[in-house]
């Protein structure tokens, strides 16, 4: 029984109320094409093209000094993207709509960057507190603002992703639940609206995963 709108975000299943809905987090692994034969399949080719594109993108942000670390952000991107897009399928649970999930990704990432910066580049980190060209009078205030913006970073990363996922799903569910009480003409409009919304949400799913990955890459590039 659907007792509330938010029950679509409930991780517990109807099998002994076990939280096996979280399994959807790892379903994306099945979608990644393998490189098995010397000649790749067209999906493997498309996949490696996307990875190459992301690598170039992230490498440009990180700079040439940090070779190889783009793999972390590429994995992060694909993980979130699979979670977001698969979550749009009917009945499939969207784990990235939960703060428990997004904060688990964002908080350790941010913490390691900050600790790395403080331990290895202390002066550089402190210099970041006052942007270049700040008037002397504003400096104490800027330190406060920069510190605050630094501290809320994991929160904004996590909330941005979760809120985007929740908003889209809620909108789709709300509209979808109107269906049974509408006339046939209105239902056809509703279906059109749902298709358009679903297209928008598919775009949002990919954009948000990209935003998450790019922002964490930016945060990483700031600490060295």
């Amino acid at each position, binding site marked *: 029984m*659907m*007792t509330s709108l938010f029950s679509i975000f409930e991780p517990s299943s109807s099998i002994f109320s076990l939280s096996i809905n979280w399994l959807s987090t790892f379903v994306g692994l099945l979608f990644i094409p393998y490189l098995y034969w010397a000649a790749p399949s067209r999906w493997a080719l498309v996949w490696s093209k996307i990875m190459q594109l992301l690598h170039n993108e992230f490498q440009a942000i990180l700079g040439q000094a940090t070779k190889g670390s783009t793999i972390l952000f590429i994995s992060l991107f694909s993980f979130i993207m699979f979670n977001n897009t698969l979550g749009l*399928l*009917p009945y*499939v649970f969207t784990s990235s709509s939960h703060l428990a999930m997004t904060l688990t990704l964002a908080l350790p990432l941010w913490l390691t960057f900050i600790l790395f910066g403080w331990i290895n580049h202390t002066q550089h980190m402190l210099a970041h507190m006052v942007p270049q060209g700040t008037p002397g009078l504003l400096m104490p205030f800027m330190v406060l603002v920069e510190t605050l913006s630094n501290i809320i970073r994991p929160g904004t990363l996590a909330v941005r992703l979760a809120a985007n996922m929740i908003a889209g799903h809620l909108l789709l569910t709300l509209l979808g639940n109107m269906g049974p009480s509408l006339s046939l003409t209105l239902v056809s409009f509703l279906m059109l609206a749902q298709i358009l919304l679903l297209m928008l949400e598919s775009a949002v799913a990919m954009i948000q995963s990209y935003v998450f990955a790019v922002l964490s890459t930016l945060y990483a590039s700031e600490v060295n």
Partner: protein
Amino acid sequence: MGFGEYPVDYNPKVHGPFDPARFYGKPDTPFGQVKLGEVGSWLGRRSVSGLPGAMSRAFWRWQHKYVLPKKTGFAPFGQLMVGCMIFFYAINYGKTGKVLRSPQEPQVPLVNVELLLVSLQVLSVEAHCYHHRWTP
């Protein structure tokens, strides 16, 4: 046979390059050819420890057939997506099925089972046709 090791019966000199989709042990009578009286002993020869291996081979058979060919199509993704939907529909069956309505209105099922079945059939037929277009 430990995790990540070759099956005990696999011999590169005899079998050639390893194929994860192939069973290298001594083949038992196929289930379709087992006589009714022998079903008990046939089932007795099954073991739980062989299950992960069997599932792995099935997975690789699927990979060989749908994902790994050079000219593959949308079929494997469609199959996975439909599989996902069925799995999560099944494990949440007790929760879904009814929409929230006011008490005086009759309860209307959220899912039209017939429509779902028909669309699944259409999808599977389409995936089948699509796959066979690529095979000579």
